[in-house]
C-alpha cells in the first residue's frame, strides 16, 4: 500500500500534479475500481476471474446496440445486466459445481465472451449512443462526476456487504477455511457462485460507464482490464493464500495502478509499455510478499 504513495511521488513528470490530471486519474480509476472490488472477493475465495475484460467489452457492445436501437437507456442497462449475470452464473457454476479451476474456467468464458463480442460486431464499432447514456460519464450529481459517485457507492456497498453481513463473513471463510463453512452446515457452492455473479453485476455496471465514455460499444474495449484489476488487488495486499488486504487495500491498489499508467502516459510511453510496467509492479509486489513470508 505504501507503493501507492511512493509511486505517486516519484512520478513528478510534467503536469502530473496538476488538478486537471488528478481529476483525470480519478475518473479513470473509477472504472478500474468497479472491477477490482469484485475481483477482491473472487481472489479472497482463492479464485480468479479472467473473463471480466471480455465480458465488459461484450456488455458495451450489447448496451450500445440496444440503446441505439431502442432509444431506451433502461432497456440497454437491463440487457447489459442480463449479460453480466449470465456470465457470472456460468463462471460460478463451472467453478462451484463442476469443480473446474477458476483460472481455467474463466479463461474459457473469456474466450466465449470475446468470441461473442467479435461475432456480434464483425469487428466494427458501434457508435453514437443516446445522450442519456453519455451523460452517465459526463454528468454530475451533487457536484461530483457520476462515475466517482458510482464508484463510491459501489465501494460502500461492497464494504458493508463484506464486513457487516453474514454473507460477507461467509465469503471470507470460503477462502480461509472452506471446510469450516461446510461443517457449519452451509452450502458452499451457492456462496461461491454468488461471488462470481456479483462480479458479473459489477462488470455490467462498469460497462455502463465505459460505454458512455467511449460513446459506443467495442469488442476490444476492455480487453486486458482484468489484468489491471488483478494487479490492483494483488498490489493492494490481498493474495491467494491469505485473506488479508481487503477492499481498502484494493482501493489503494487501484490508485497505484492508475497513477502508474497515468504517469507513464504523461511520459509519452504507450499503452503497451504501461501494461508491461503493471506486470512488473505485480511481480515486485508478489516478490516482496514472498520474501516477507506471505504469498
Amino acid at each position, binding site marked *: 500500500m505504501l507503493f501507492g504513495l511512493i509511486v505517486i511521488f516519484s512520478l513528478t513528470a510534467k503536469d502530473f500534479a496538476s488538478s486537471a490530471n488528478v481529476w483525470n486519474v480519478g475518473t479513470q480509476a473509477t472504472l478500474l475500481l468497479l472491477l477490482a472490488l469484485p475481483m477482491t472477493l473472487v481472489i479472497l475465495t482463492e479464485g480468479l476471474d479472467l473473463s471480466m475484460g471480455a465480458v465488459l467489452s461484450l456488455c458495451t457492445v450489447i448496451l450500445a446496440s440496444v440503446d441505439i436501437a431502442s432509444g431506451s437507456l433502461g432497456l440497454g442497462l437491463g440487457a447489459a445486466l442480463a449479460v453480466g449475470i449470465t456470465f457470472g452464473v456460468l463462471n460460478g457454476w463451472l467453478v462451484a459445481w463442476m469443480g473446474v479451476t477458476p483460472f481455467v474456467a474463466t479463461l474459457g468464458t473469456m474466450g466465449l465472451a470475446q468470441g461473442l463480442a467479435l461475432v456480434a460486431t464483425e469487428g466494427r464499432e458501434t457508435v453514437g449512443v443516446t445522450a442519456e447514456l453519455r451523460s452517465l460519464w459526463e454528468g454530475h450529481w451533487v457536484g461530483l462526476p457520476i462515475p466517482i459517485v458510482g464508484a463510491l457507492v459501489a465501494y460502500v456497498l461492497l464494504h458493508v456487504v463484506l464486513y457487516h453481513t*453474514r454473507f460477507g*463473513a461467509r465469503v471470507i471463510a470460503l477462502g480461509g477455511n472452506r471446510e469450516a*463453512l461446510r*461443517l457449519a452446515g452451509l452450502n458452499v457452492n451457492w456462496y461461491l457462485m454468488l461471488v462470481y455473479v456479483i462480479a458479473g453485476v459489477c462488470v455490467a455496471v462498469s460497462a455502463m460507464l465505459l460505454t458512455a465514455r467511449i460513446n459506443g460499444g467495442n469488442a476490444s474495449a476492455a480487453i486486458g482490464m482484468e489484468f489491471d484489476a488483478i494487479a490492483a488487488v494483488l498490489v493492494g495486499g490481498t493474495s491467494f493464500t491469505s*485473506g488479508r488486504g481487503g477492499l481498502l487495500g484494493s482501493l489503494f491498489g487501484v490508485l497505484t495502478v492508475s497513477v502508474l499508467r497515468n504517469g507513464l502516459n504523461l511520459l509519452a510511453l504507450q499503452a503497451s509499455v504501461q501494461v508491461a510496467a503493471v506486470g512488473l509492479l505485480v511481480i515486485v509486489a508478489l516478490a516482496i510478499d514472498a520474501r516477507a513470508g506471505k504469498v
Partner: protein
Amino acid sequence: MTNKSSTGPAQHGTVLETGGHIGTQIETRSKVSNPLLTLSGISKTFPGVHALQDVSLSLWAGEVHMLMGENGAGKSTLMKVMCGAYEPDAGEFRRDGIRVEVRNGADARRLGVAVIFQEFSLVPYLNIAQNIFLGREPMRCLPGIIDHQRMHRDAREVLKRLDFDVDTHAMVASLGVAQQQLVEIAKALSQHARILVLDEPTAALSDRESERLFKIIADLKAEGVAMAYISHRMEEVFELGDRVSILRDGKLVASMPASQAMPNELVALMVGRKVDMAYTRDARPQPGRTVLEVKELAAANGVHDISMKVRAGEIVGLAGLVGSGRTELARAIFGVDPVTKGEVLVNGKEFRAGPPEARECGMAFIPENRKLEGLALERTVGDNLLMAAMPRCFPKGWYIPAHANKLARDIIGQLRISTRGPHTRAQMLSGGSQQKIVIGKWLLDDAQLFIFDEPTRGIDVGAKEQIFELIDGLVRQGRAVLMISSEIGEIIRVCDRAYVMKDKTIAGHLERGDLDEAKLVRLAVHRD
C-alpha cells in the same frame, strides 16, 4: 429442546445399545426416560477401509461419555458422523428416543449437537468473535447486517467462562495453537448445545487451561448437557468420565461405567491383545554401527536441543503426545525443514541438505499421511514403487519400462502386496497395501535408515501385523529404523528402545528393559 416424555424408567444398556459390548451394567434411571442422543448400528466405509462397523452408543443428559481407542480406531469418524459432517452408510439416530435424520451439519445443529474439533474449524482471517459465531451471527434490524457490538459482547462473555482474556477483534491467524483451541471451545459453548462432542480438547492446552475446561464441563454436567469426550489420557478418563467406551478397528468393543473400569483393562481392550512385556527379541542382531547421529539439533520448525542416535539393526521409537514435535524432528533430519543449529550425521558424515541428498545418503522417510505425502494416487503401483529409486535403478538416466515392471513385481512379491500387478492404480489399494508401497519404494532404493511416521495409522489389524514383520525384517538385514508412534503399545512391542518427546524437545530416553507404558506416559505428559 424437545421435551422428554417420562414413560417410566428405562433400562440402560438393553434395547438402545446393540452390537457387541462387554461389561455393561444395567442401571435404572428414574429421572430421564431416554438418552439425549442414541446412535444404533452406525457403519461407515471409505474406499479400502471400514471406518465404523455397527457402532452403537448412547449419550445421557448430564453424563460424560469417554471414547477411547487407538489411532485409526474410528473415534474421529464417529464424531464426524455425530455432527453431520459424514453421513453414515447404515444405522440410525434417535433424539430422546425419537428417530431423526442427521445428514448434514445443519441437521446436527438443529438437534443441539455441537462439536469441538481437534483440527480446527476456524477461519484464519476472521476475528475471534466472527469465528465463534460463524453462520449464526447476531443481526441488526436489517436482515443480513451483522450486529458487531452484540457479537463481540457475546464473544467476550463466552471467553470469560474460559478465563480467556483476549481482544475479540484479534484475527485467529495471529493466535497460538492453544489459544485457537480455546476459541474452538468457545465456539461450541456459545451454541448452548444439549449434546457436546469433544475431540481431545486438552491436546494443546496447559494444565491450568485444562483445569478451567474441566470446571466448565462440570458445570455443563449439572445443566444436563450430554457429552462425548474423546481422549488419550487415562487421568482425564477417570477424572471426568461417567462411562467409558472403547473403539477398536471401527467396532465398539466395550462400554462400561467409569467406576468399573481399570486402566490396564482399558489398554488391553484398546490394543486387542495382552501387552506382553516379555516379548522377546533376542533373535535380533546386536546393534551395529551408528547410522544416524543427531547433535544438539534445532530447526526452523520449532524442535530444539535434540540429541539422539540410531544404530544399524535396531528399531528406535519416538514417542510423545500429538504436537510434541516428532514429525517436525523427522522432517528436520530428512532435510525437508531447514536446520538452524546443531548437526545431523549420517554414517559419520555431516548432512545438511534437502531430500534429494538425504536419499543419496541412504535415508528413507515414510510420512504420516501416506495418501497426501507418500503416494501419487493417480499413478500406478509400479510408478509409485519406482518414485525414489529411479536414479539408482537406472544410473544412465534411461528409463526402461520392462525393467521397471520387473523390479516392481519383485517388490510386490517380496512384501506380499495384494494387488493385481504394477499397472493397478495406487488409489485402488487398501491402506495396508498402500503403506507397503511406500515402504517398498524405499526398499527398492536400498535405503539404510528408515524413518517411519505413524506407520500403522489407519490400517486394520491384520495388515498391522504384516507391517511390523516388515519393519522387523528391515533391521534384521542390518538397516536402522526410527519409528514415530502415538500408540504406546506399538512402541513397547516393536522397539528396542525409545526417545520421548515433549514440547518440541527430547524429554527422556528409555532402554529395552525400561520400556513400559507408565514411564513412557510420564515422560510424555504435558506439564506447564
